[in-house]
């Protein structure tokens, strides 16, 4: 397997307004090897989208602050690029599929023009080649090319997301960031869209950062998994590590526990009790301590380090230092 071509090192992002400071991403690190899919899992508000937008450098201006960290892409720091250089990366080298296809397409432009725009921005080619490529892209995502003269409101949600996908893949990017691409879609077409993304990703040999809160999706499509909580990765590893190893972060246990099982009769869901800590006021120590069934005194006082076993890393006091014996 090749070296990691994309790494995020110790990323810290805050949103600062007059009323409050939201600590969205707090020292996040992750890396991705070429051709692989990394699933970034976490509940709403864990900082997943903030991470994605930091990579694209599309965080809302004025309120967002990237305090620390580096994002390396093919050995180049994206943070150091000028706005002009970054623009050439966006859409061509790194492309993004957004959460809500209903709002991420421009309502007053034909979908064909919107797909064509990416190509015009990055690939110099003749009109004829351009039109041909747009047709190809439409066909690739399963939309009849003659519908490219239509407007977004004439398409269903799933179709719109396909157009967003066509847009993202138009320049065959090296890295595809898919930010909960199926969350806004009907359950019946979620699988369809996801399969298509996975298939096209393989065909184009693109690497993917898949942001999701659905562990089922992760199991189907990802090679690596990183579980995010309150702006940090609390557990990461290969899909095998996460789904089959014995030891897990209590939060991961909770996530798995909250998936209803077909084989076990139960009348209620078993969610993780409590809520994520207020991102404007994060606790000392482990951010999950307040909800953790295995919370120890040390968890309240000191932030745990990662316990690394081969590819599997867990950020929890249960598996580090002297506690290690009792837990296992």
């Amino acid at each position, binding site marked *: 397997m090749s070296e990691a071509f994309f790494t995020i090192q110790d990323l810290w992002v805050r949103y600062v307004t007059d009323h409050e400071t939201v600590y969205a991403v707090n020292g996040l690190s992750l890396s991705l090897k070429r051709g692989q899919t990394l699933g970034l899992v976490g509940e709403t508000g864990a900082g997943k989208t903030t991470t994605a937008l930091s990579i694209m450098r*599309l965080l809302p201006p004025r309120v967002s602050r990237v305090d620390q960290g580096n994002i390396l892409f093919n050995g180049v720091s994206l943070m150091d690029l000028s706005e002009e250089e970054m623009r050439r990366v*966006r859409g061509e080298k790194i492309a993004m599929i957004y959460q809500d296809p209903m*709002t991420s397409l421009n309502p*007053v432009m034909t979908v064909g023009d919107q797909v064509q725009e990416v190509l015009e921005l990055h690939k110099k080619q003749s009109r004829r080649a351009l039109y041909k490529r747009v047709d190809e892209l439409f066909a690739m995502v399963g939309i009849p090319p003659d519908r490219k003269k239509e*407007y977004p*409101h004439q398409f269903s949600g799933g179709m719109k997301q396909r157009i967003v996908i066509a847009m993202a893949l138009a320049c065959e990017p090296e890295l595809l960031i898919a930010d909960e691409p199926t969350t806004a879609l009907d359950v019946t077409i979620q699988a369809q869209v996801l399969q298509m993304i996975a298939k096209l990703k393989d065909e184009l040999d693109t690497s993917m950062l898949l942001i999701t809160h659905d562990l089922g999706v992760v199991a189907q499509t990802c090679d690596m998994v990183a579980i995010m909580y309150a702006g940090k990765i609390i557990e990461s590893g290969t899909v095998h590590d996460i789904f089959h190893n014995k030891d897990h972060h209590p939060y991961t246990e909770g996530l798995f526990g909250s998936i209803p099982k077909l084989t076990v009769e139960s009348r209620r869901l078993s969610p993780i009790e409590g809520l994520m800590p207020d991102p404007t006021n994060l606790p000392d120590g482990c951010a999950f301590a307040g909800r953790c069934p295995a919370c120890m005194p040390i968890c309240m006082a000191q932030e745990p380090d990662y316990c690394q076993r081969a590819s599997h890393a867990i950020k929890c006091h249960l598996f580090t230092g002297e506690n290690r014996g009792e837990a296992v």
Partner: protein
Amino acid sequence: MHKYVLKRLILMVPIILGVIFIVFTITSLTPGDPGRMMLGMTASQEAVDKLNEELGFNDPYVVRFAKYLGNIVRGDFGKSYKNNQPVFDEIFARFPTTLKLALASITVTILIGIPLGVLAAVRQYSKLDMISTVSALFIAAVPSFWLALVCILAFSLHLGWFPPNGIGSIAHYVMPTFTLSVVYAASILRMTRTTMLESIRQDYVRTARGKGATPAQVIWRHALKNALLPVVTSMGMSFGGLLGGAVVIEQVFGMPGLGTLLINAIKMKDIPQVMAITIFLATLFCTIMLLVDILYAFIDPRIKARYTS
């Protein structure tokens, strides 16, 4: 779309009828009589009464209204009490002046208001934004006749750059156009700024940036078109208002446009003239609003879809 336009054209008929009814009623309620106005204060009461009788002014209100409607249907809008000429002669003689002024003003309004509004939104809280919004607020609060008088003082009396009144040359139009357009531009600027601020925060603008589009492409191609709808409505209304004769401005600059004609007709109780101008303007206004709605369809395909269904 054709069906929609046809429907709207038919709908104009009751609107115009309503306008006719209201204005006719108001003119009948005002004191004074045309006979006295036409013959002057020195004329004998008998002559005045005789003329009023001839003009049908002594008939009951309902009879007069019915007669008037009947004449209109036959295309006869009557003759001006003032000069005994068909009323539309005077309207058509004066309309070009008003139209020129309106076209020039709306063009300047668009050229100033929209770009500044866009820039103010894109550079929100910048110096440019502060200056343009504050001055827009100031100008919108200033009465236009005051601005016109200040212009005459400064540019005609002191600097002698532009003639203070009349319509002889292009120079005559500069100050009226300026005074009218800064006032309208101020409101267009504020509206564009507001709608742009909304549209640049939309997801599709982020999508466009995510494609690698330049800031200029993002703003002019993606954000502005979406921000334009309310601005177009407001511009349509402004244009309609301008055609209705910028009554005050025409008066201040001594321009023989529709506005001054209307004022004089009202003063003289020249009922056929007042009626004709009002009908003309109402029809014009309805047509402009229809054009605005058609323009909508070209800006926003979702609205076009609604028109055809």
